[in-house]
Structure formats: C-alpha cells, structure tokens
C-alpha cells in the first residue's frame, strides 16, 4: 500500500470511535431541523454547506423561533470562532500544501476531525503524507454526518408533535455545557450569560442572545485574568 493510502486509512481508523458518538447527534439534528420547519433539502444541505454540529443545532433553534437572518448568521460566526484556534494549531503541519489542499482540509476541519489529527501530528511530526491522515479522518466524519442527518430527517418527519421534541434541543445544549463547567470562570460565564439572556429576552430580533453571549465571554475572560494575578 502506498504511504498516502496508509495515512488516509489510519485517519479513518482513528476517527471510528468518534463516529459512534457523532452518529446519534446527526440523527437528532436531522429530526429537530425537520420539526423546526426547515425543508428536507435545507435540513440536509445545512449538514454539507455549514458542516458544524453546534452551529447547526443553534441555527435550528433560531429558525424555530423565527429569528431574523442576520442574527442567525452573527450567531453562527460567534459559535464557530473556535475553529480559528484549530486552524492556527494545524497550520504549521499543513504549510507545505497547495491552496487547493488547504481549502479542502479546511472545509473538513471540525472538532472531531481536529482532535485525532492534532494528536497524530504532535506524536509523529510532519511527514510528506501526513495531510492524508486529516483527509481520512475528515471524510469519515463527513460521510457519517450526511448519512446520520438523512436518517434523522427521515425519522423526524414521523414524530408526532405532542412528544415535545423541541425540548430535546435545550437538553442537548445542557448535555454539552454542564460537563465543561469545572472552573469558576466557566461557571460565571455560563451563569452571567444565562441571566442576561433572561433580562434581555424582550429585545427585538433575538439580540438578547448575542448580548448575553458577549457578556458571558467577557465575564469569563476577565475572571480568568483576575485569577491568574
């Protein structure tokens, strides 16, 4: 087997344990998107155009609340800012590649593709074929995400309204946020954002959400700085 092929399949193999966790998420996303009133095509295409789990969940939530387009776009931007960190972190390992390769790998750069790849690169260093590893991990996740979304859309359209499936979305967010609440600045960021969101709830265009998020981010960052002194 060629070196590039081996690196590709190593990437796929490293991604498999993560796929098990991601698959139900894709299904939940698909089901919620349909129930939020998105068309089948838009629900599926969000998984390939945006291809970012938490941003897709939040978009679904905002669509169901009829938030205006600019607020949804702004929120997607804020939520996905963390990808700049991944981009910075992987950049030294991909610097020798052509722009086409860089663009392809950037499109596939999700939380779950980043995690095994950076571990591999920090362990092995840069080799001529290392980028195939990220391609393998990224494509495995991409395929898994598209299929699980489709299955969720298919099943979601058959779920009756009185099951209150919309509540699964805040529950998903609770499951994501509670485990990261370990240090005081994190807890303060979450609580302050939550309280501001309640106080600013009546602001038009769901702007309360953006305001609350900014307050939470600032509170967390300032507290971390104060603690470091």
């Amino acid at each position, binding site marked *: 087997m060629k070196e590039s092929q081996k690196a590709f399949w190593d990437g796929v193999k490293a991604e498999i344990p993560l796929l098990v*966790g991601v698959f*139900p998420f894709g299904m939940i996303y698909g089901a919620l998107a349909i129930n939020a009133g998105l*068309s089948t095509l*838009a629900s599926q*295409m969000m998984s390939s*155009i*945006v*291809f*970012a789990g938490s*941003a897709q969940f*939040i978009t679904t939530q905002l*669509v169901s609340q*009829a938030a205006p*387009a600019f607020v*949804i*776009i702004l*929120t*997607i931007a*804020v939520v*996905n800012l963390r*990808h*700049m*960190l991944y*981009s*910075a972190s992987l*950049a*030294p390992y991909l*610097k020798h590649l052509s722009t086409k390769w*860089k663009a392809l790998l*950037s*499109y596939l*750069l999700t939380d779950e593709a980043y995690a095994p790849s950076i571990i591999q690169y920090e362990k092995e260093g840069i080799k001529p074929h290392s980028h195939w590893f990220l391609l393998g991990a990224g494509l495995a996740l991409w395929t898994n995400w598209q299929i699980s979304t489709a299955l969720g859309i298919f099943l979601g359209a058959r779920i009756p309204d009185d*099951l*209150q499936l919309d509540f*699964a979305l*805040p*529950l998903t*967010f*609770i*499951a*994501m*946020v*509670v485990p990261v609440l370990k240090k005081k600045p994190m807890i303060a*960021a*979450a*609580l302050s*954002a*939550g*309280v501001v*969101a*309640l106080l600013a*709830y009546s602001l038009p265009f769901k702007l309360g959400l953006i305001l*609350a*998020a*900014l307050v*939470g*981010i600032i509170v*967390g*960052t300032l507290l*971390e700085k104060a603690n470091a002194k």
Partner: protein
Amino acid sequence: MQNNIWLVLLIGGLITFSMRFSLIYLFGKFEIPETLKKALHYVPPAVLSAIIFPELFIQDGALNFQLTNIRLLAGLIAIITAWFSKNTLLTILVGMVALFILGWLQL
C-alpha cells in the same frame, strides 16, 4: 424564512469555512492575540447558556420560577444527570422522560 434560509446557509457556510481556512492559509503572517485565545474558550458555555436559560425559565412569554413550570423542572433534572453522568444521550433521554412524566402528572 424559507427564502431566507438559503441565504443563511450560504453565508453561514462561507463564514465557517473562512474561519477554518483563515490561519491555515495565513500561516506565519498572523498570530491570534492571547486574550482572544482565552476568550474563545468561553464562547460555547456563554452561547449555550444564553439559549438554555430562556428555554427553561420563560413560559408563554413571561418569567416563570414556579414549580408548575415543568420545563424548568425537567431541565434541572437533566442538569443533574449531565453533571454526574457526563453522558449526552443519557441526559437527553432523562430530560425527555422527565418532561413527559411531569406533564402527565400535571393532568
């Protein structure tokens, strides 16, 4: 919204891609300032909490801290589940079952 949704998807996708592509493309030309790096860690809990709180506390357009607010109760049960189990699917399942049972008890 159905007309707008494609605009949201296209621009949202483009922004997401740009962020992923930005520093891979600009390698060596630009460093993220330390403060911004720190701030980015607080984005997920801040944004998610800003969505969770109104979902739990606001009922029919008004704040409701009462025990009659079953979404608040089910949410608290889910938070406790998430805290101890750190298991996403279990948290969603327990929260949904709690909402269902509480709703049934209320009838």
